[in-house]
Structures are given as C-alpha cells and as structure tokens.
C-alpha cells in the first residue's frame, strides 16, 4: 500500500451535512489533527474505526443543523413515541428483525455495487457505443485461434477505405517492459503503464485533456502526455507543461510534456500512466502487415450503417494485406463493441483482466437471493408478531381508536423499523468498503450511490408496508369475525426455512470448494520453486555477469540467474515443430537460471556457461509438453532433428535437455510446450533464490550490491509467488465474497429461524405445559420440537446439495488442474446446517421446558 492516507472524505461530507456552520471548522480541524496524530501509531483500519467513533460522538443536539420544515415531525411525534416504546419493549424481536433486514440490505448493496461497477466498464467514453475494437482470428489448419492484436498497417487501410470510420487509432502497450523515466539528476522512476498511440486517440476515446500546451499534443514523437497522478508524482505542484523528461534508452530520449490527461478510471479495460506518440524509426508501420502486435480501435460515424461492418473490414484486410497469399487460408477480422470487451472477451493478449458474464450473473442472483430471504424473514416475523397483539388492539379500540389510526400506528412502527434497518445496512456496507478496499479493487462511497440506495429503500419500505397492511387491516375490522392465526402463515414460514437452508447449503459447499481450489493453487507443485525474489529491471545493469558473481558471494543467496521471461509473468511465443507447427512459449536465459528457479532436469544436461554451440540458433532445453508435441524420444538427445519449416527448407535443431512440466500460466490452462534458449546479452529479470532467516537483512545486502552497479536506478523487485496469486486474483476475490456471503447466509438463517422458533414456542407454551403435566419427559418435548425443523433442514439440503454439485462441477471444469469434488464438502454443509438447527431449537425448547410450566397454565 504505502502513500499518504487521508481521513475518509465521506466523513467530512457527513459532518458538513449535520453540523451547524458555526462549529464545523474547529471540529474538522480537530478530526484532521486526530487522524494525523494516530495514523503513525496504529494500523490504518483501526484509526478509521476510532475516527468514525469520534465523529459519531460529535453528533449532538446542540450542534445539529436546525431544518426549516419540522412540522410533519411534530405531527407524528405521538406515533413515533408509541412506536419507539413498542420496539424497545420487545427489543429481542426488534433486534432480530433489524439484524436480519440490515444484513440483507448490506449484502445486496455490496453485491449490487460490485456488479454495477463491472457493468459500467468503458461506458464513460462519449458515444461509447460508436467505438469498436478490431481483433483477428488466425486460421491454422481450419482452426480459429482468436487474438486481440492486429498488424499496424490495418489502421490506415480501414481509415481510408471504410466510409463509416470517423476516427481510428492503434494502441501499443509496454508489454511488461520497464521504462526508466528520469525527471532530473536525482529522480528517476520505473514505469510500466506506458501506452503508445496515434494522435487520433483523442478522437476515438473520451479521455479528457485537462491542460495542453499544443492544440494537438501528440503530433510530435518527442511529446509526452501524463495522467494527473503521474504529473503530480514527477513534479508535485509545479506546472508540468513544457517540462523535459528523459526516457532512458528510447529514441528520442528527451521528451517534452505537452498535455495532462485525467486519471484513467477503474472501469476502463486498458490503463496507462503515460501516453507517447506511436512511431518507429526502423520500419514504416503504415505498410507493415506482418507484425501482429497492435490493438486497433475505430469510432464509426453517428448513424453509420454498421450492419455489414465485419464483411467490409474483411474485404479491406484481404485486399491490402500484402503478406497474405492467394491460396492461403485467410485470417478473419471483425469488430468488437467496446462495451462488450470487459465482460465477454477472452482473447489471447487481452489488455486487462477481463471478467466473465457468468460470474457477474451468479453474483447478481446471490445478491437478489439474500435480499429476498431477509425480506421474507421480515414479512414472516412481523406478521407473527402482529398476531400476538390482539389484546393491545382490544384496549386501544375500547378507548376509541378508529380503524385507520390503528393501521397508521402499525405501519408507522413497521416503516420506522425498516428505515433504521436500511441505515444500519448501509452503515455495515460502507464499513466493509472502508475496511477492505481490495475486495473490489477500488474505493466506494455510498454517498455516490444515492440512487441505488434510494431505490433499494423504496423496495424495502414497500415490502414492509405490504407486510403490515394486511394484518393491520384485519385488526382494524376486529370484532366482525373471529381472528385466527391461519395455518397458511406457518406453511409460508416452513417454505421460507427450506429456501434458507437450500441457499445455505449451496453457499457452504461453494465456499468450501472455492477455498480449497484456491489453496490448491498455492500449495500444488508448480514444477519449480516459486519462492523466488525477482528483480525485474535487471536490463538497466551494464555488467550483468559481475553483478551475478558478487550476489552469489552473499551467504544468503543459494542460486541466481538471468531470464527474459518468467513463469506466471509474460513469456514470448513462437511457432515451431515439424512436420506440424505448434505454438511454443520460450524464454532466453543464462545457464544458472535453471538451477536457481529449481526446474527439474529429467534427461540430458543444462547449458554450459560460455559454450558457443549451446548459444547457437536451435539448441534448446524443453519441457515434457514440448517433448510430446515434438514427438521427441530420449535417443534424440543432443542429436540434430528437424525442428521447423522455414518456407521450403527444413530447420534442424538439438534438444539438450528435458525438464519436468511446470505451470507457467494459471491453473485454468493446460501446461503447454515451453523451451529455454541460452543467449548472451542483457536479460530483463534477475532471479534470486534467497535463503535467510533474516529476510530484511538479506534484502538490504542485495540492494547494497545492486546500488554499486545500477547508476542510481532503484531495483524493482517482487516475490514470484505473488505473481501467481495475481493470476488467480478473480478467483481469490470470488472466494472472499463467497466467504462473507457464507457467514451472512448462515447468520440470516439463524436469525430467521430463531424468530420463528420463539414465536412457535410462545404460542405453544400451554401445550408444552400440559404435555409435561401428563408425564412427557424433557427429551420427548425437545424431540417433538426439533424433529419438524430437522426435516425442513433435510429437505433444504436435499434440494441444495445436488444443485451445489452441478454448479461447482461446472465452475471447476474451467480449470485444467482442479481438486476433486470430495463428498466431504457436502457432508460438512449437511452437518453444519443440521447442527445449527438442532442447537437452536434444542436450546430454545429446553429453556422453555425447564421453567415452571404451572405458571403458564395458571395464566389468565
């Protein structure tokens, strides 16, 4: 994390809203000072909780803003007082009701805001529906291999030959490389989010320039556009326009800041900190049809006919693509609507971490489900409660209360309770947003979601209204017929319990499966040592070998080596194989890398340091998957075999060794062919196997040596394990959301059942007393009550578990390497729900039965 943290802005908004003008300044000052004072002493979340505590303690009658229209308030004062008294007198029921409803509201809000954020991707551009991306499907042996990148020449061809196109731009990202940007003698920064684009970028996308020194700020190859955030990082409060930046190792090196652009919002499918003009001195990009490395975006004219856009683009591609031969299979280009990319596109080389619609749908359903359960909970508990107020109604009526005022009173109570519940729920949701910002990958303030909150409140209050109006109306006509509690009500309650336990068992199984699959990622043998320290800007070092030798002399470093690519990070691919070509990922390494990263050599040998032949063209070490794809057997080790076709000629190569298969992408993907080549020259990554009891000391020793070689550029390092966790960041997020939902749904079931059990037992006190008087034992009475509930739990599980099996099987099928669906998960879900029900009903009935039941029989 790091960086300065500020007191939550929403707190100050709240303060300004409730507090009289007169007090605001000093209170704000004290709060800010408090926050600064304690931030140094406590972890952030703790300070935030204290902060909120103090803020809330500051809401006092004397400083609350007096509002003009307080007349309606006084009109309802009497009702408010009655309602308050009733709610406080029955505080356990009130609390049950309140908790269940506010948890429902909180969960719904959290899930809804998450889903809303996911659905909002890329909609912030002006005319977002006119923007398209143009990806390509490669045709290989009749198979379509989708890919997000196209050749750079397509841009010009589309712009000049398609009448619908209003503007077009190419995007060329950093591809994971590190850019060293020097601001002055002392300060250099390492940047990754550098995007190279055409000047028309601003005609296609709706990113707003905040200031610019030139009407077309990207017209020159030496111009730089920074986001607001980056400009602040480089220059602080000074004016960044016209300032010079040195991009070390790039052509041109000296560049001038010509524009400041707003920060890229979280809901953009690509992100950047720095924009440069796309330009290449060595080749003419507008004529290059061979280099599939560019992202192509177009904006069509308003009301343009896009019905045949795909066909027209294909025609242009076929006509101008000089590289495609007549008889060869032709690649297929098509338009992809900008708004669909984040949720539906899963091409090779996506620019961001795209989500899928299925997860979104699941989460939406869960949100609605939980809200529904808590609403039904509320309906049932409220109507059950109303039935026990017959006496109160009688007294009120005999004192002359009219029907309408009775109804109004009940409605008032109900709506008061729901409003408190909504406020509490919103509070809980905001607290969760505050405490775990990484749960959603962004900061969320409920004040900004006022519309959502309003609609949700409306729905909840409406349900509360409907839940109360019917029983209340029956009361108001009391006396015209006998009032009976209908058995229908109980059936609804039973149905609800079944629904709750169905949901609970599904969610329990789901959580267990996701959590186990997640720990499987972490603990499974990846085929190499992932506990590695990686320095990812080793390319900036001139004397890489000397650095390596000095580092190896450190006692804490077991082994070290250089490589171009890393498992879990980016690797390049090439087409290889004879007679059938296949796609193979590869890395350029130094010999010591294999040992440092702990790859297991199954056959053959490692590269020899400084051996010229090992460095030559097609001598390599492969993994088992590549051996299989090459149809390689161990007799071929070190022997020249046909490796690839280059036009008409066959290329030969030597396999020096075979390493055990290892996971170099996520666990969703099967392990694919991989090869290592030994090449001299500067490599991107320095990999260190650090074994030390004092990691901190070891790291500073490494840093010391690095600094003597690096010319002032700081080492950017990370542990490889973390990159692997990042590959599964969506699953990790899902598992965290599911864990929370699991606890919440159990809690909801608990409160719902508690309410109904209490109600049932209270109604049947006399029955219990009679049974006991006639000689029933404690155990019999408990059994009598528990049995019914356990049957409901069993029915719930009977419906839920098969559904959970089907759903989780489908989810796991997405992974090539997955855990088996053990019966244990289902057993745990069944036992947990059964135990919960037995415990709850059991203890309630024991407590009731143990009281002196003669008192109950004597009543009235």
């Amino acid at each position, binding site marked *: 994390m790091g960086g300065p943290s500020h007191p939550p802005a929403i707190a100050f908004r709240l303060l300004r809203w409730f507090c009289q003008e007169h007090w605001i*300044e*000093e209170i704000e000052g004290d709060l800010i000072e408090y926050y600064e004072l304690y931030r140094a002493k406590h972890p952030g979340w703790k300070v935030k909780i204290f902060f909120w505590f103090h803020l*809330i303690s500051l809401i006092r009658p004397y400083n609350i803003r007096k509002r003009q229209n307080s007349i309606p308030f006084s009109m309802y004062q009497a009702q408010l007082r009655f309602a308050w008294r009733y709610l406080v007198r029955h505080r356990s029921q009130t609390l049950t009701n309140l908790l269940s409803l506010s948890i429902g509201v909180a969960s719904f809000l959290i899930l809804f805001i998450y889903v809303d954020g996911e659905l909002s991707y890329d909609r912030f551009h002006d005319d977002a529906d006119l923007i398209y991306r143009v990806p390509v499907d490669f045709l290989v042996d009749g198979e379509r291999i989708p890919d997000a990148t196209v050749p750079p020449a397509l841009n010009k061809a589309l712009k000049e030959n398609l009448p619908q196109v209003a503007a077009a731009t190419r995007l060329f990202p950093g591809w994971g490389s590190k850019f060293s940007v020097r601001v002055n003698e002392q300060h250099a920064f390492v940047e990754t989010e550098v995007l190279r684009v055409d000047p028309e970028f601003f005609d296609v996308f709706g990113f707003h320039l905040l200031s610019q020194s030139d009407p077309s700020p990207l017209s020159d190859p030496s111009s730089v556009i920074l986001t607001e955030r980056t400009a602040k990082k480089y220059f602080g409060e000074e004016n960044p326009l016209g300032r010079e930046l040195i991009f070390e190792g790039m052509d041109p090196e000296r560049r001038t800041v010509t524009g400041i652009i707003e920060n890229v919002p979280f809901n953009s499918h690509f992100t950047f900190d720095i924009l440069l003009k796309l330009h290449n001195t060595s080749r003419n990009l507008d004529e290059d049809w061979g280099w599939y490395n560019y992202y192509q975006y177009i904006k069509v004219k308003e009301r343009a006919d896009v019905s045949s856009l795909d066909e027209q683009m294909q025609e242009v591609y076929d006509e101008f693509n000089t590289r495609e031969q007549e008889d060869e299979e032709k690649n297929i280009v098509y338009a992809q609507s900008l708004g669909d990319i984040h949720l539906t596109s899963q091409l090779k080389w996506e620019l961001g971490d795209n989500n899928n619609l299925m997860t979104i749908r699941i989460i939406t359903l869960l949100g609605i489900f939980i809200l529904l359960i808590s609403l039904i909970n509320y309906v049932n508990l409220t109507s059950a409660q109303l039935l026990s107020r017959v006496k109160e109604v009688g007294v009120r009526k005999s004192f002359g209360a009219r029907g309408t005022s009775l109804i109004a009173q009940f409605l008032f109570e109900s709506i008061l309770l729901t409003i408190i519940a909504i406020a509490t729920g919103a509070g809980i949701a905001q607290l969760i947003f505050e405490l775990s910002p990484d749960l959603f990958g962004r900061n969320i303030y409920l004040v900004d979601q006022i519309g959502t909150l309003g609609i949700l409140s409306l729905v909840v209050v409406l349900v509360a209204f409907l839940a109360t109006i019917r029983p209340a109306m029956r009361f108001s006509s009391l006396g015209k017929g006998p009032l009976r509690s209908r058995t229908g009500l109980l059936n609804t309650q039973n149905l609800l319990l079944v629904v709750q336990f169905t949901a609970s068992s599904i969610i329990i199984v789901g959580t267990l499966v996701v959590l186990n699959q997640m720990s499987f990622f972490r603990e499974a043998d990846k085929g190499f040592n992932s506990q590695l320290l990686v320095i990812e800007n080793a390319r900036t070092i001139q004397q890489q070998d000397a650095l390596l030798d000095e580092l190896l002399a450190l006692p804490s470093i077991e082994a070290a080596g250089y490589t171009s690519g890393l498992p879990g990070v980016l690797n390049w691919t090439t087409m290889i194989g004879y007679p059938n070509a296949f796609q193979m990922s590869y890395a350029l390494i130094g010999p010591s890398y294999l040992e440092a990263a702990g790859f297991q050599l199954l056959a053959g040998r490692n590269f020899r340091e400084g051996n010229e032949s090992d460095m030559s063209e097609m001598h390599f070490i492969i993994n088992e998957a590549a051996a299989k794809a090459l149809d390689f057997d161990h007799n071929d080790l070190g022997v020249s075999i046909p490796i690839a076709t280059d036009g008409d000629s066959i290329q030969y190569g030597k396999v020096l060794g075979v390493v055990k298969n290892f996971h170099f992408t996520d666990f969703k993907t099967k392990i694919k062919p991989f090869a290592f080549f030994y090449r001299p020259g500067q490599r991107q990554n320095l990999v260190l196997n650090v074994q030390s009891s004092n990691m901190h000391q070891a790291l500073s020793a490494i840093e010391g040596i690095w600094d003597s070689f690096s010319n002032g550029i700081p080492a950017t390092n990370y542990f490889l394990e973390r990159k692997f966790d990042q590959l599964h960041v969506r699953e990790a997020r899902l598992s965290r959301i599911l864990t929370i939902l699991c606890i919440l749904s159990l809690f909801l079931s608990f409160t719902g059942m508690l309410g109904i059990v209490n109600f049932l037992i209270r109604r049947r006190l006399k029955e219990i007393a009679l049974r006991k008087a006639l000689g029933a034992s404690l155990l019999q009475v408990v059994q009598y009550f528990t049995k019914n509930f356990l049957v409901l739990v069993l029915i719930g599980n009977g419906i839920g578990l098969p559904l959970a099996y089907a759903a989780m099987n489908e989810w796991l099928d997405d992974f090539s390497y997955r855990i088996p669906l053990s019966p244990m998960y289902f057993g745990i879900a069944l036992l947990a729900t059964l135990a919960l029900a037995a415990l709850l009903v059991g203890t309630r009935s024991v407590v009731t039965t143990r009281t002196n039941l003669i008192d109950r029989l004597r009543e009235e």
Partner: protein
Amino acid sequence: MKGTNLGEFEELLMLVVAALYPQAYGLAIREAIKDKAGRSVAMGAVHAALNRLEKKGYLSSQLDEATHARGGRRKRLFALTVSGKATLIQARDLRTQLWGSIDQLSWDQMNFGYGRT
C-alpha cells in the same frame, strides 16, 4: 448557591483548560485527559462539555489564527473566565475543608461495604 456546582468531568475539564492555557482546544484537551488521567473519552463528549461550560459562563473561547497544520482549519481556544476561576476555587476550598474535618477514627473504622445480613 444552586447551579454553580460542577460535575466531576466538568471540573477535570476546567482544570485541564487552565493547565493548557493558552493552547487549550478540543483535541489537545482530550489528549491531556488521556495522558494525565488515563481516561479515553470521545471527542464528542469533550466538545459538548466545553460548550456547556461556555454557556454557563465558566469558559470563554475564540478562534485561533489559521495555520497550515490541521488542513488549514482554525482551532477554538478556550480560557477560564473570572467566574470559572471562582467556581474552581470554591470547589477546591469545599474539598479541603471537608478533608480537614475527617476524623482519623473514620479511616480506621472504614467498612468494606455492607451486606444485608
């Protein structure tokens, strides 16, 4: 004289205001109470009590000059008024007087509470 009685917390607060003068403002007072008396009180409680005492006329307050600290917000600095000082002295005198009148015997005979039996 009814109405001039100070609550325990109010008295503590006024003493702290006097001790911190001229830098007695909300947060500083809270922190002093925390450090000296070991009592962690909510900022709201301090703020409310200070305003109550000001209304009673025991404290006076004015806004400080703005500084760059605290996000540029001014502090409200409190000070004892003449009547505040008189009330404090009165409270102390009453206590000293009562302490002086305690007979040694009552210390020796001190009960540890009493039960019904």
